């Protein structure tokens, strides 16, 4: 067993430390070491976006980031979206628009949409599609997801 490395990072606003092997991806650390299983494992090669997390304000595939590379970084996962019992508007709108079926892609889409709206609170449909272009969904056909994100943006803008 290789030596474990001590890593300090911020996860959904809280200081977190963990031990991991260099070979463990951030995805493995989140799911298997920290028990944050909201982030999903799909392809493990950057081809699906199910593992998306926000790293220092930008979405990344956590399957292609090492756990040790999270040192000093700020990580946001799907677990950080809801506030206590209150769903994030994106989550609420995904439910209302039936923007999910099997749900394996959903955390990745929510996180990618959150990163998009953080940067661009009032996106066009084109910008939403461009911002979500790194997430695959096998079930919904994407349209409902795009509607849900546009609707959530409108609600968050008070429209």
């Amino acid at each position, binding site marked *: 067993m290789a030596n474990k490395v001590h890593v300090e990072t911020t996860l959904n606003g809280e200081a977190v430390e963990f031990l991991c092997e*260099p*070979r463990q*991806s951030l995805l493995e650390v989140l799911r298997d070491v920290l028990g944050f299983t909201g982030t999903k494992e799909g392809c*493990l090669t*950057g081809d699906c976006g199910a593992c998306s997390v926000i790293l220092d304000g*930008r979405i990344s595939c956590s399957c*292609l980031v*090492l756990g*040790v590379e999270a040192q000093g970084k700020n990580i946001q996962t799907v677990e950080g979206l809801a506030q206590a019992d209150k769903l994030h508007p994106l989550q609420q709108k995904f439910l209302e628009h039936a923007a999910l079926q099997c749900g394996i892609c959903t955390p990745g889409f929510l996180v*990618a949409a959150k990163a998009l709206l953080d940067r661009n609170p009032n996106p066009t449909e084109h910008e939403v599609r461009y911002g979500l272009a790194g997430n695959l969904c096998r079930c919904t056909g994407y349209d409902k997801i795009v509607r849900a994100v546009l609707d959530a943006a409108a609600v968050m803008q008070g429209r």
Partner: protein
Amino acid sequence: MMRLPPFRYFAPATLPEAVKVLADYGPAAMVLAGGTDLLPNMKRRQFTPQALVSVQQLKELRGIRETENGSVIISAGITLHELAAHPLIVSRYPALAQAAALISTPQIRNTGTLGGNVCLDTRCNYYNQSYSWRKALGFCLKKDGDICWVAPGSAKCLAISSSDTAPVLVSLGATFLLVRQGSERLVPAVDFFRDDGINYLNKDPEELLTEVHLPPPQGTRSTYLKLRRRGSFDFPVLGVAAVLRIEPDGVCTAAKIVLGAAACKPRVADNAADMLIGQKVTQALITLVAQEAAKLAKPLDNTDFAYGYRKRMAEVFVRQALTKLAE
């Protein structure tokens, strides 16, 4: 098998420390930039380095700056997202901004770097597969085997240069700064890529790519067109980079056409480009030039789409790129 193999991890804080580790380990170490090419390849056991040297902490690898003579120096650690959005790049070298924006997905562009894109491993349908897939077939020349499945008679691997920025950097006349312990050298982009699917870079394992130097555009316009199946995720199966300078009287005084994803390295279509020099860029001339340039595309059956179609599209894309620049 899709977990990473074990390795020693180094995250040096300075450039001298980084090149020292690279010198100490030699071929047993690999550079980790964004990891978006390296880590999937390691999961597929195409590489099992003893050590990874992360270059993320290196300040020397950050930033884009202009020099006194109007050249632009891009540090190798700049992300594809930063490159695509940078005002200096968008205004002076639009082809490079376009190529970066067309790579993969938002996630990958946020992590993947220019340096990693330049050093991107060559690709092939028989190679970019899991270890068990490759094992079932008996492996191939590029890794662990002794036959090329694309051209069984070939002594050489024909895997494809699939970087979107490589053809653009060649067309813009870029040079690369390579640093190793105790010395450094500048290599023109055109000499950096080798016509060999296995040893595809003119670079030693001990060398770190630190900077990409772009000469002043000197009145040229540039563009990049990419062929792929989906509008996202997919690697190029053809890329066309074109640079033209057209004087106010309509005469072309500089031209460069480079084809990407058409061979082991970017192919420079100088015969075709030279036909434009001293001429007015008419549609009739563009058609002839595109036919000439497409002769260099010799696609093989080792990526997406039928190779006959890819060959025809080389002509179409060169025509479209030149037409766009001549408008």
